[in-house]
């Protein structure tokens, strides 16, 4: 009878929300891996039914305190799709600027506070700060710049209130934008220093054969719009999402697992964006990536922290480009009149593609809403990574194995509260 080991993490730290990880090992084989999401289902989709289409950005922003902008952006674009309106020009540019703020804020929180301790053998950011206070100060400074973008354009830093279908409620003044640009110029050096710092970490050799899925836009690194593409040839408009993807219930999770009908699980997030959109990065971000030793694609999930750091350089650079060429719009929004129909949108949340679908009646009341967040799309891939990762490392003692498994989960910066529509780890050795 083979020996059975169970590694059980009942509450996973340094991820957003409540979840657990159970791993069962029998002899020298990995028997079972379950990322259990038990954050209660939150029924946002049911809550939206019967509400006005104009309320969707403010209601869905409440799904997450880390990436509310992503929810707002997917909601406004889907509503505009349903109503046949396209927001262009400076308003479009300002939406992109707002998204830059969220990427900086969310990625920097993840890199410095949540994930770097794993690579440097520390239990928390507090231990890390004790050894390298100047590094953590830099992270806090950089994150603050992201918060300031969201605060300025969004009206406040958490759950912004200035976003609406058709644009914004109020546009900041020219002098506000000029002051922001000055802060971003300083942030650019901090962002480059972040890439250089992270590039010195030790990354396990763990290239995986993923199907990457993300947005792709002809002229820009994707935030708000583009076609849904994959590394295995998928190339569809956001409106065709449900023809190619399906959500399944699994017993061990309150989050639905999303898969490609044709080929099963896939991966969204920074590695997908980077690998499929490298040529759209700014010259500075490309140079930072090359200096860090990254190729044009990256298949090692442990390097996602490095790719996030490159994306922070990009976000700072892009925010500066937008501010440099920005003409303050005459009106804070365009009029969007409701009509009966269905609207679709996907945008690139920091953790990956976030798809929204809404069906509206003629008065603009929401009859149906479906929200597919990045962590639920990645859940099966996280489990798969763990299966492959553990197999050659079975001889490790449970505590080391547990540490490395948690690190592997944090590669995804999982946002568990979003995906339920939190982590405990159990490793059982039989």
């Amino acid at each position: 009878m083979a020996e059975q080991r169970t590694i059980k993490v009942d509450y996973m730290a340094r991820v957003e929300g409540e979840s657990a990880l159970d791993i069962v090992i029998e002899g020298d084989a990995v028997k079972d891996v379950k990322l259990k999401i038990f954050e209660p289902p939150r029924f946002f989709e049911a809550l939206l039914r019967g509400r006005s289409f104009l309320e969707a950005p403010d209601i869905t922003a409440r799904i997450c305190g880390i990436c509310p902008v992503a929810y707002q952006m997917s909601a406004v674009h889907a509503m505009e799709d349903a109503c046949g309106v396209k927001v262009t020009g400076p308003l479009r540019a300002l939406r992109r600027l707002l998204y830059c703020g969220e990427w900086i804020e969310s990625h920097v929180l993840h890199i410095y506070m949540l994930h770097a301790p794993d690579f440097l053998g520390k239990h928390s950011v507090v231990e890390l700060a004790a050894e390298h206070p100047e590094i953590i100060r830099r992270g806090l400074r950089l994150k603050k710049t992201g918060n300031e973008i969201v605060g300025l354009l969004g009206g406040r830093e958490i759950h912004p209130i200035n976003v609406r279908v058709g644009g914004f409620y109020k546009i900041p003044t020219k002098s506000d934008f000029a002051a922001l640009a000055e802060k971003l110029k300083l942030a650019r050096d901090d962002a480059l220093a972040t890439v250089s710092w992270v590039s010195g970490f030790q990354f396990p050799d763990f290239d995986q054969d993923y199907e990457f899925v993300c947005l792709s836009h002809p002229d820009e690194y994707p935030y708000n719009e583009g076609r849904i593409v994959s590394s295995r040839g998928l190339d569809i408009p956001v409106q065709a999402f449900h023809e190619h993807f399906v959500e399944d219930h699994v017993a061990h999770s309150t989050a639905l697992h999303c898969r490609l009908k044709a080929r099963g699980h896939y991966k969204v997030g920074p590695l997908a964006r980077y690998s499929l959109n490298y040529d759209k990065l700014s010259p500075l971000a490309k140079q930072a990536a090359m200096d860090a030793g990254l190729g044009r694609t990256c298949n090692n999930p442990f390097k996602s922290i490095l790719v996030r750091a490159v994306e922070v350089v990009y976000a700072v650079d892009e925010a500066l480009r937008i501010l440099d060429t920005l003409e303050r719009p005459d009106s804070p929004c365009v009029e969007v009149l409701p009509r009966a129909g269905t609207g679709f949108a996907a945008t690139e949340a920091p953790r990956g593609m976030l798809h929204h679908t809404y069906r509206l009646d003629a008065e603009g009341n929401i009859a149906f809403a479906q929200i597919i967040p990045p962590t639920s799309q990645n859940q099966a891939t996280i489990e798969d990574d763990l299966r492959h990762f553990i197999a050659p490392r079975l001889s490790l003692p449970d505590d080391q194995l547990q540490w490395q498994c948690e690190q592997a989960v944090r590669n995804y910066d999982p946002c568990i509260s979003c995906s339920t529509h939190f982590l405990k780890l159990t490793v059982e050795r039989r």
Partner: protein
Amino acid sequence: MSTMVIGIGNRERADDALGLIAIDRLQREHPAGVEFATARGDVLKVLDLFEGAHKVIMIDAMRSGGTPGQVVRLDVSDVAVKVDLANFASSHTVNLAEAIELARTLGRLPAHLIVYGVEAQDFTLGNGLSPAVAAALEGLLTRVRKEWACTKHG
């Protein structure tokens, strides 16, 4: 140098609203030399709020296995009270204890940092304060008012 009172919590999660409700009440009294702030969601924000403050009083709901409504005062100015602070559970990525210890490590702690924790009963989404926590509110406010009064005279 001023006194800053920070309420922490989530208004939509029952007893977790306590810190914010306490700030609503105290702010209306306009005490001289006292500033108020809230931290909802991003606890790291307290590091910025500490800047320039001589004394900071934080109010948050906690779960330590005690009697609901019980008020605990922790002076964390000089000593890390890690065990107690761990009870300020957070579904957020960085919890209150980590934020305070990070501030200490980076030399950003105010001279005096007092944390008031109120033992919570209910964190259910959509519920109001539980009766035990609601009943503790007046007593808590009286104690917090004394904190800034003693700063002024002391």
